[in-house]
C-alpha cells in the first residue's frame, strides 16, 4: 500500500498527488512511469512520474479524470492509500546536449513533459517551451515549466490566454523567426503529437514523443500497448514510452486508443452512478 501525503487540484478535474514509494523515488529517471491500481479490483493504469524526492521517499503523479479509474483515484485524499503502484517502468529518456530544444506540451501531457524538460535543461540545453490548452483554466504547470525554460510560449484554442492557435502554429512561427531548432520534444494528445511530428519532419528536426497507450502489466508481457514504429511493432511499456515521432504510425495509434471506448463509457457511468454523480 502506498500512502498519499499531498493532493492538489491543479485545474478542473486535474490533480497532482505525492505518494510514498521510496524505491521508485530513488530509482526513477526522467521519462519513466508507474502503473497503479487505486483500490483492490480496480483497473491498472499508467501514469508518468512527474517529480520525486529520493530523500523524502515520495513520487509525484498528475492525472486528469477521464474515466472510471481516474475518477476513483481522484476520490482518494491525503492519508489514504493506493492499493498497488509499480515502477519505475519504461526506458528513461536519452538526455544529451542538443543545443536548442523545443518542449511542446498539450493538455495533461505537460505533466510527463516536465521531468524530461528539467533533465534536458540540466544537460545544458537552451529550452523553448510551448504549452497548449483548450482554454486558460485548463493550462497546467506553467510556472514549473518556466523554471526550466529560457522562453515560454502559451497557446490556447480560444485565445483566452497567450496566443490563439495550436502548438504547431507556434513551432512554425519559431522556424519563420529563424530560430535554429535542434530537437523537439512533444507530449500531449496523440493528435497533437502527430501534427507536431508531421511539421518537424518537413524541417528535418529530430522529434521525440512520449506515448501514453493502453497498458495492462507494463512489463512487456501483454502487448496491449503495441504501436507500429517504422513498420515494426514496438511495445510502449518496454521499448518506449519515447519514440522517434517521425516513425510512429499515428493513424494506427489513434485507432488503437479507441478500442475500448464503449466499455470505458459504460464503466465510467457505472462508477459515477455508484457515487451519485452524472457525467
Amino acid at each position, binding site marked *: 500500500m502506498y500512502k498519499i501525503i499531498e493532493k492538489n487540484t491543479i485545474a478542473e478535474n486535474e490533480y497532482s498527488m505525492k505518494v510514498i514509494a521510496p524505491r521508485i523515488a530513488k530509482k526513477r529517471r526522467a521519462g519513466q512511469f508507474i502503473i497503479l491500481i487505486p483500490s483492490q479490483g480496480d*483497473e491498472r493504469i499508467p501514469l508518468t512520474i512527474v517529480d520525486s524526492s529520493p530523500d523524502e521517499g515520495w513520487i509525484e503523479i498528475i492525472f486528469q479524470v477521464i474515466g472510471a479509474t481516474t475518477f476513483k483515484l481522484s476520490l482518494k485524499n491525503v492519508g489514504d492509500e493506493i492499493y498497488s503502484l*509499480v515502477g519505475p517502468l519504461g526506458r528513461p529518456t536519452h538526455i544529451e546536449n542538443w543545443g536548442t530544444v523545443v518542449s511542446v506540451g498539450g493538455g495533461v501531457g505537460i505533466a510527463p513533459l516536465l521531468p524530461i524538460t528539467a533533465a534536458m535543461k540540466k544537460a545544458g540545453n537552451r529550452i523553448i517551451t510551448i504549452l497548449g490548452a483548450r482554454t486558460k483554466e485548463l493550462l497546467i504547470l506553467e510556472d514549473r515549466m518556466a523554471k526550466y525554460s529560457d522562453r515560454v510560449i502559451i497557446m490556447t484554442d480560444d485565445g483566452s490566454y497567450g496566443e490563439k492557435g495550436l502548438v504547431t502554429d507556434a513551432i512554425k512561427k519559431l522556424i519563420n523567426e529563424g530560430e535554429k531548432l535542434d530537437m523537439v520534444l512533444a507530449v500531449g494528445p496523440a493528435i497533437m503529437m502527430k501534427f507536431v511530428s508531421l511539421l518537424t519532419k518537413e524541417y528535418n528536426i529530430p522529434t521525440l514523443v512520449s506515448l501514453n497507450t493502453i497498458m495492462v502489466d507494463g512489463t512487456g*508481457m501483454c502487448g*496491449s500497448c503495441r504501436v507500429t514504429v517504422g513498420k515494426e511493432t514496438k511495445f510502449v511499456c*518496454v521499448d518506449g514510452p519515447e519514440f522517434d515521432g517521425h516513425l510512429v504510425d499515428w493513424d494506427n495509434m489513434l*485507432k488503437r486508443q*479507441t478500442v475500448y471506448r464503449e466499455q*470505458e463509457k459504460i464503466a465510467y457511468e457505472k462508477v459515477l452512478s455508484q457515487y451519485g454523480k452524472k457525467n
Partner: protein
Amino acid sequence: MSKENIQKIIDEINIERKEEWRADLRRSMKAKARGEIDRVHMIEREPDVRNKIFEEVNLGYTEEMAILEAKRCLDCPSPTCVMGCPVAVKIPSFIKLVEEGKFLDAAKKIKETNSLPAVCGRVCPQEEQCEGNCIYIKMGKPPIAIGHLERFVADYERKMNAAEIVKPKEKKGKKVAIIGSGPAGLAAAGDLAKMGYDVTIFEALHEPGGVLIYGIPEFRLPKEIVRHEIENLKKMGVEIITDFVVGRTATIDELREEGYEAFFIGAGAGLPWMLNIPGENLNGVYSANEYLTRVNLMKAYKFPEYETPIARGKRVAVIGAGNTAMDAVRTSKRLGAEHSMILYRRTRKEMPARIEEIKHAEEEGIEFIYLTQPIEFVGDENGWLKGIKCIKMELGEPDDSGRRRPIPIEGTEHIIEADVAIVALGTKPNPLIPDTTEGLKIKRRGEIEVDDSLQTSIPGVFAGGDVMRGGATVILAMGDGRDAAIAIDKYLSEKK
C-alpha cells in the same frame, strides 16, 4: 529435476514399498482383479452448461471413486510412472495410502516432493509424464488416473484445512531472493524455507502466482487454490513483495548490496511471440497473454462489475494449438462468442495441448480448422479486425521437432471472418533482467544460460522455468525450482 536428485527419491520409494502394510495390501487383491477395474472417470460439468460460466469444469472424485481407482494400481516394483514425473512424486506410495483411505497421509507423501499438488493434478500433461509411463499402457489398458488422484488428495487436504506447515528446525540466517512468484519461484521458495533460509519473493504484478494467476483460467484452475497454496508458503515464513520489477525497481546487484546472498530467477517467459504479418496491430487482435491477463488477473469477464474491459467478439479465432490456445478459445466461448475457432497449421495429431483440454474444447463447441495458416489480418475503416486472410497447408517431411512440416499450398488464399483474433504461439523470456544484470549470459532466443546445477554465468545467481527453457510447463518449472533450491543450499553451505 536432475537424474541424480530423482534417483535419491526412487531409492526412498523402494524402501517404502517394502513396508509390511504395503506388502499386505498388495496381497489383499490379485493383480488380475485390480486390472479388471475400469478407470474411474472424474465428474465433469455438462459441456452446454460449463461453456457459459467460469466455474471449474472438472468436479473431482468422491472418496469412494478415489479408493476404487487406487485399487487399480499394481504397486510395481520399479515404478516407471515416477521416472516420468519431473519432480518425482512418490506415486505408488501415495496411491496405496489412498487405497487405505489415509488421504491426509497421502497428501503428505506427495508434498515430500511436490509443493503444489492441487495445481499439478489439474494442469500437468499426465499423458506425457506419469500416466504415459504407466505399466497399464503396455498392457493395452488405460493408465492409472494419477492426475485425478493427486488432485483428489490435495483437495481433500485443503478442504480439511489439514495442510501441515513445515517449519525449519533451525534458521540459517541467510537471505535468498526469488524473482517471480510463478511455479518455479514458488517451488524454490518452499524448499528453501524448509531448509531454514530467509526467503523473499519479488513479484512484478500486484498478485502473486505468475502464470497460475494471470494465465490459466478459473475454469481449469480456480484461483482460490493458488491463493491457498501461497498463504501456506507465507505461513512457512516466505515473504512476498508484490509490485516489484527486478531490473527496474531494483537490480540484482542492488539487492545483493541489501544482503541477499543467492538469487533464483524464475521470471517466466513473459514476452508473447507474434506472427509478424500485416494488420497485427488492428483493434481486436490480441496476444493470448493480454487476452488471458485481462480475463484472469483483471477479471474482465465480470465487466462492468470489474472495470477492466475486453473485446467480446462474435467470431473469435485463436491461432495456435497449445494449452494456452485452448484456454483462450474456451474463454472466448464463455465470453459469449457465437463461433470460437482454433486455426492450426498442422493437424489434430500434432497439437501440443493436453488431450483433456482438446477433448473439453471439442465438447464445448469449439471449431477446429486444421492445415490453415494466417497470412494477414484484414481490418475495416475504423481499424477493427473483420477477417483473417489464410492459406491452406499440407504436411511435408518431419522437421527438427519431429512433427511433419506444414507447407503452404499456392492459390488457396481465403478469408476467415473474425472480429477478434488471439495469437497463442508461445512466449519468450523477458529481456529486462539480462539487460539490467551485468555479466548474465543469455542464449539466442533470450533464454538465460545455466550449467547443470542451474547456476547462471554469475556465481550465486540461479535460473529455472520458462526464463531458462523458453516456454514449457508448470511442472518442469517446479522441478527446476526444486533443483535450484538444492543447488543454492549447496552454494551457500560451501560459500565462506
